[in-house]
């Protein structure tokens, strides 16, 4: 299938720094595509280039077949963008806010009223039509900003860190909303530095660091690649010397890179094996007589995984 968002060798250089160093991207229509990476990885820069807010220093990008450099006006018509840090106008009511952007897209007055009502219902702000924008909560403002990006019914949505600063409830609501939008046929490109936030939502992810694309593909595929280097947390019913013996037992396993006793009495294992290997390790440990209360993979914290992935890359580079 022809990708609806395509980037080839995208580079953005500033005087001394390189924010994006050759990013290739292909997003198929109808996907929710996650762009993951730590802060400063070049996610925002990439999105801003796609949103025609920045000129790439090199490379080419297309949205729905329009070049972001040669046909920015056409790109803007098929694209809705929600920036990371977005502001709201003072002294403006919710419906006026949407009305303003609808006017910017040249939507005729006859259609604006109905469209604003539909959009406010979609983002669950139907009762806030006449509220001043600055009086809305952060989560509501976020949803309003999402609604603003939808006034022209775009094919593609670019959302930069849409969940940052939201409380858990608002996050869940946002996730539901994005699923709804996907069902409406929108392609959504979303950036985040928190992997769990995306893995429940996205069909595909790309992982960026230092302006480079480290991995790109289906979520499960990436997960498999990242699981190499998981962290296991084991709670053994033991104290003192017995606990140290348990740690040494785990440390002797060839798949375990490190074993440390944490302050709360659990043992943390740096684990190199896959799921099958961890199941075998558990079985062996139980057979060895360890009284294991819990044995679980620690929540995959992206930064932690990154350290492992990137350090592995660096080792590979120095070995070569």
């Amino acid at each position, binding site marked *: 299938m022809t990708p609806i968002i395509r980037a080839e060798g995208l580079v953005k250089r500033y005087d001394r720094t390189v924010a994006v160093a050759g990013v290739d991207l292909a997003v*198929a229509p109808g996907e929710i595509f996650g762009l993951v990476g730590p802060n400063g990885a070049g996610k925002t820069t990439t999105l801003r280039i796609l949103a025609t807010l920045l000129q790439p220093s090199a490379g080419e990008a297309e949205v729905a077949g329009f070049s972001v450099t040669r046909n920015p006006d056409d790109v803007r018509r098929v694209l809705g963008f929600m920036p990371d840090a977005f502001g709201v106008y003072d002294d403006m009511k919710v419906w006026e806010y949407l009305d303003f952007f609808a006017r910017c*897209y040249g939507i005729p007055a006859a259609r604006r009223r109905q469209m604003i009502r539909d959009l406010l219902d979609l983002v669950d702000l139907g009762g806030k039509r006449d509220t001043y924008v600055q009086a809305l909560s952060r989560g509501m403002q976020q949803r309003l900003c999402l609604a603003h990006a939808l006034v022209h019914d775009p094919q593609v949505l670019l959302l930069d860190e849409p969940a940052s600063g939201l409380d858990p409830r608002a996050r869940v609501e946002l996730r539901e909303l994005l699923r709804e939008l996907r069902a409406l046929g929108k392609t959504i490109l979303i950036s985040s530095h928190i992997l769990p936030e995306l893995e429940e939502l996205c069909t595909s992810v790309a992982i960026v660091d230092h302006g480079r694309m480290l991995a790109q593909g289906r979520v499960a595929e990436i997960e498999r690649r990242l699981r190499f280097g998981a962290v296991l947390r084991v709670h053994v019913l033991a104290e003192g010397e017995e606990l140290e013996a348990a740690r040494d037992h785990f440390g002797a396993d060839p798949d375990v890179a490190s074993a440390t006793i944490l302050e709360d009495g659990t043992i943390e294992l740096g684990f190199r094996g896959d799921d099958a290997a961890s199941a075998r390790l558990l079985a062996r440990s139980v057979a060895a007589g360890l009284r294991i209360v819990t044995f679980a993979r620690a929540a995959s914290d992206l930064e932690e995984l990154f350290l492992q992935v990137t350090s592995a890359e660096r080792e590979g580079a120095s070995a070569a």
Partner: protein
Amino acid sequence: MTDEAIHVDGATPEPVPTQPIARNRGFRRPHPMLAARRLFGGISAVGVKELRGRMRGRRAFVVLTLYLLLLAGFAWMYELILERQYNTGLGGSAAFASASIGQELFAGLMMLVTLLVVLLAPAFTAGAISLEREKQTLDLLVTTPISSLAIVIGKLLSALTYVFLLIGASVPLTAMVFVFGGVAPDDVIRGYIVLVATAFGLGAFGLFCSTLVKRTQAATVITTFGVMAMTLGSIFILVFWGAMTGVRIGPDVPSGGVGPIKGRPPEVVAYFNPFIAQADIVCGTQTTYSLWCSGVSQLLNGNSGVVVFTDFGGTIDAPASEPAVEEDGVRVRPAVAVQPFGVARDGFWPKSVAAWLVLSVVLITLSVQLVSPTRRWRPGLPRRSPRRSS
């Protein structure tokens, strides 16, 4: 991982209706009519949004009412001053007294409204773009298809709407001078043309400063200094020029200028001083060698005094550009006949208006370049590396 994601993982995601991609390639220029309609749509979008904020509630109209009350109070008090200061020994007839009071009242009102325009027009626009940057709303705006030109013009017009409202509201008050006489309707029209052109030019200047720097505070400071240079600065330069080129009596002292400072000062220095343009218009109402006429004449002609009235029929000193002649051992300027009535005066303000309009066009063009995210060039300014974020 959700069921949905797993499902999608296994199969290709269901196709979504999108337009064929290959058709969209290449650069297309929209039809001129469509482009014009989009431009006006964009201007009205920005304008409506700005005016909704500015005109909401009673504030704008309370301010307007207060302004008119103050202006009316000023006019009344100024008229009383003029009445008491009028020297009956000079003119004699009451009609003449009334006319000359009317002229001075006209002058006072125009100068006051000009001062308001000079203070307010750039102040209203100096935050137009930088505030959007500070509130992080500019990104939302420029990712819409609305053109940068529409943003700039919409911002400028909506900010100036209030200034134009203040200018327009003063018209009935200024028309009161017709009761006194001495001022013709075309004089008043000229005065208002200068006011509108000044508001436009200074508004464009404030807007340009607002696009040039990131912070509203910096934009306001730059705008204020620019306005001071245009008004106080230009007068100071003209006075300086006049002093340098003025004739000095004595054998050793060269007269007629120093280095490149010779003859009449370049008039362009005064084009962006609306007070001089207004003084020129006030001078146009008067037949005597008044304060306003002599002021304009002294500033623009470098102390040469080539303006004004003919009935005098005599001669006055030649411009300083003329070589001095020796008379009884003293270097003095030669005498020349004064120009006939109506020629030299009242000719400055149209140039000033034209200069404001040219300046507006130039500044709007530059502002559009600076607002546009993809067509950005910043001549002479060091490029700061923007906020680098994830």
